[in-house]
């Protein structure tokens, strides 16, 4: 591992000031960063430890109309919160079904959103990888690409966005608050935080160097209670998604008034499936409607060999999530 300087930031201003230096990385739980530093894939020269920022960044503030999550809230802290359990079951599911309890005790919500892909060619330094070394090529295109994405891919990179929590946030129209620039913090829709790989897969999000996520805001909608996450993986627990679906529904009898749909395990970024939402809106939700919505969600999917199974698997996962959300008592 490359040597680094370690700085503990007691305040937001101190963190931002430290992060002005080049090659600096914030560290929260460390469960992603320490891993990639150990692998030698990430080589920051300075680590700014943000675990000692004021308590407000580690708090959950839930009311009738909204949910505000500090970026330093731990995954396990959020999954245990009674109001999240009651009003945002989708958020709770995405947390509970992720990683292991030990990791969730460490991992922060902010760090979770920015975790690196698990693409083995990115993790292993001996391979061509445009994300790790821009311009070097992509070993996954013709390689073992079973875990790779079928949506949002490019000729430069087909790496899957690995997280679960992000699918809840993109489905529920969350916003993130970001500190770091001059003046007041800026707020951006969560959907614009991550960037499609395009021909610059090494740029994964829209944060400027040194910017820090401080809060995540989730509005309460009439669909947040009837929300559900279904995650399919190679083993039942402690594994990333092969395919997952996040859905939130507002029903009027059998008819769908509003639908929010996001997909995980199959796309390069947190993926909102608006085409599926359009099929659902205003129609009676039965299995055949769910199938049509799922077909729309994957209409633009581009398989690359080993990962072709993700298209039917992803469709079935979404159908199941929709039908399970329909039968929730909300």
């Amino acid at each position, binding site marked *: 591992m490359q*040597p680094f300087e*370690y700085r*503990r930031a007691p305040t937001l201003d101190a963190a931002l000031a430290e992060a002005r230096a080049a090659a600096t990385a914030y560290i929260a739980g460390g469960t992603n960063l320490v891993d990639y530093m150990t692998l030698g894939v990430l080589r920051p020269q300075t680590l700014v430890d943000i675990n000692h920022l004021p308590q407000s960044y580690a708090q959950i503030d839930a009311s009738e109309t909204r949910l505000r999550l500090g970026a330093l809230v731990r995954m396990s802290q959020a999954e245990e919160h009674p109001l999240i359990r009651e009003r945002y079951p989708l958020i709770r599911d995405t947390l509970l079904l992720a990683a*292991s309890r030990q990791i969730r005790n460490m991992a922060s919500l902010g760090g979770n959103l920015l975790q690196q892909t698990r693409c083995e060619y990115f993790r292993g330094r001996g391979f061509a990888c445009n994300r790790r070394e821009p311009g070097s090529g992509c070993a996954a295109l013709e390689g073992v690409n079973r875990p790779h994405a079928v949506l949002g891919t490019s000729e430069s990179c087909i790496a899957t966005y690995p997280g679960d929590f992000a699918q809840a946030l993109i489905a529920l129209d969350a916003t993130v608050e970001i500190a770091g620039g001059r003046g007041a913090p800026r707020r951006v829709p969560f959907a614009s935080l991550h960037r499609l790989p395009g021909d610059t897969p090494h740029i994964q999000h829209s944060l400027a160097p040194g910017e820090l996520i401080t809060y995540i805001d989730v509005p309460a909608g009439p669909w947040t209670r009837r929300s559900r996450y279904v995650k399919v993986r190679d083993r039942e627990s402690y594994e990333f998604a092969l395919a997952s679906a996040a859905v939130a529904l507002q029903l009027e009898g059998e008819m769908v008034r509003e639908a929010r749909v996001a997909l995980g395990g199959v796309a390069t970024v947190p993926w909102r499936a608006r085409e599926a939402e359009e099929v659902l809106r205003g129609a009676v939700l039965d299995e055949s409607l769910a199938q049509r919505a799922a077909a729309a969600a994957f209409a633009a999917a581009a398989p690359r060999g080993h990962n072709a199974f993700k298209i039917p698997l992803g469709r079935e996962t979404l159908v199941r999530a929709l039908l399970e959300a329909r039968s929730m008592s909300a």
Partner: protein
Amino acid sequence: MTHSVAGAGMSRRTFICAAAASTTALPLPAGARAAAARQTAGSSPHGAGLRSVDLRINHQDYALSLDPRTTLLDAIRDHAGLTGTKKGCGHGQCGACTVHVDGQRILACMTFALMNHGREVTTIEGLSEPGGALHPMQQAFIDHDAFQCGYCTPGQIMSAVACVREGHAHSAAQIREYMSGNLCRCAAYPNIVAAVQQAAAPEA
């Protein structure tokens, strides 16, 4: 993980022994061990890039002088000399390194020791009093033969103690889910679940 500090030609074991000896000597009684640790750290000139880290492990104070790259796991094993905690993968994928920090179970391979400065760490060695009775979870693992090679066992037990304390041991299914972060290559899983159920019973 220790390769960056170990000199060329030094085997892993020689290095570990040297590292352990340079901070604390294993055979010392507990109190003396902590004192030795403090003294060594205090008197050693901090070499280039070394940082002092205070850890309280199993109610003993350790004042360590560490390269910032040292994970909490390597600090516990190679510098505090407590080798009960195991390294399986070093990448968060097996749970062998599970310890408690401020009462919560975490993976010691995924955090730098420096980040845990001033915190209270409990390892498998600190679960029961020296010379005292085994912790009920340790006894339950013996009663149910919940291991074969034993390599994953310290992590399993530390995880299981926390699993019960968190209130996540109410059924076999719940235990399987909340213990999923601890892999066992010998596949002693049914026995592990039975052991956790036994130890959880009085508190359920």
